[in-house]
């Protein structure tokens, strides 16, 4: 993870995206506040809901995924991140253990959809099919579909925990997120 010394000070490239989650982990990322200014000197966010880039570059140093794998688009994004990122990090409980999105798993998918789009709707109930990704029968954590290198649990992980993990990675060390965060933190 340390910047390539041969070309002087090369920034570490970072890509992030949210899958099935509430985006709270990304908000917690922003909660690093003024520390973001220092981080911006060391990392280059090349793809993220935070920036304008529309496509994931071919090669990225660190990929950060928030959210669980709940539909076919989540699955596609997770595989794309795995293929293009040297290191892949699961950020937050949804990515790490499925969390709230996975609480639909004990129920049949058809029943879940009926409940959401018909049973509880008064006016013109319909199941959306156009332009929305297909839901998967079982919600899985990110490491249920691709290999993940670093796990940062928490709902959401505190900004301090995210800052610790990022600075350790930038320094070329292996962080121990269990020291600073836990499931449900």
């Amino acid at each position, binding site marked *: 993870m340390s910047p390539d010394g041969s070309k002087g000070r090369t920034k570490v490239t970072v890509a992030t995206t949210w899958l099935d989650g509430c985006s709270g982990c990304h908000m917690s990322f922003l909660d690093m506040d003024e520390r973001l200014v220092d981080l911006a000197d060391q990392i280059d966010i090349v793809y993220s809901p935070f920036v304008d880039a529309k496509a994931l570059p071919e090669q990225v140093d660190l990929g950060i995924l928030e959210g669980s794998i709940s539909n076919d688009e989540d699955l596609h994004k997770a595989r794309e991140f795995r293929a293009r990122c040297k290191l892949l990090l*699961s950020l937050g*409980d949804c990515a*790490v*253990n*499925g*969390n*709230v999105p*996975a*609480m639909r*798993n*004990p*129920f049949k998918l058809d029943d879940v959809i009926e409940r959401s789009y018909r049973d509880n709707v008064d006016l013109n109930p319909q199941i959306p099919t156009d332009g929305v990704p297909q839901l998967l029968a*079982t919600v*899985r*954590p990110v*490491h*249920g579909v691709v290999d*993940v290198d670093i*796990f*940062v*649990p928490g*709902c959401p992980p505190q900004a301090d925990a995210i800052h610790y993990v990022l600075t350790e990675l930038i320094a070329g060390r292996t962080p121990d*997120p*269990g020291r600073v965060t*836990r*499931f*449900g933190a």
Partner: protein
Amino acid sequence: MPLPAPQTNVRVVTLTIDGQQLSAREEETVIEVCRENKIPIPSLCWMEGLSVVGACRLCVVEVDGGPRLQAACATRVREGMSVQTNSDRLQRYRRTLVELLFAERNHVCSVCVSNGHCELQWLAQTCGVDHVRMPYRNTGYSVDSSHEMFRVDHNRCVLCTRCVRVCDEIEGAHTWDVMGRGSGCQVVTDLAKPWGESDSCTSCGKCVQVCPTGALVKQGTSVGEMVKDQQFLSILARRRSHR
């Protein structure tokens, strides 16, 4: 905390735990000696003041370098015994045990009334469980809110049977028991009647206080609000031992 021994001719044995030379009374178990000497061993089903069941296996230790692991809660001290509490192998097994508990039922900490006050959550952190490697079972269990003061959520239960033992051994009501086998195993009140219809329950709440997770909780608690107080148990158990 050790139970006060009335007899004066207590026999003492010496043993080694993690290289530390220690002495203990001969009727003590390895986990009691470890707790007295601040040697951390994770445990879930064991609780001071309750009988020993040796069910959770989190407190397994290596004894005299032998290949067979022994539960520290169910192993008495012996003269000259050598105990290893934290080898790489033990850490590996404990981590796997905690992961299996998480995979078995719904232990979503973020929406649990016991978030931040849960022994399973704390065990995950101390045993290095930052994710669960096996697939989740994703099976739903029932929730019984029929009791006017308490609630049982079987999705959060780890089957430690602390509730069963405290109800039988300390309160003397024996409202709780265990039903079924394997993944269908669950704690029940009065031959699987709804808790609110139980004739034997005294509503003392001891089961709720000793439950390590959010399985037994007070009604009306929201996320993170269920804080348990387990002080009463060792006090009651010690007073009774004098009778």
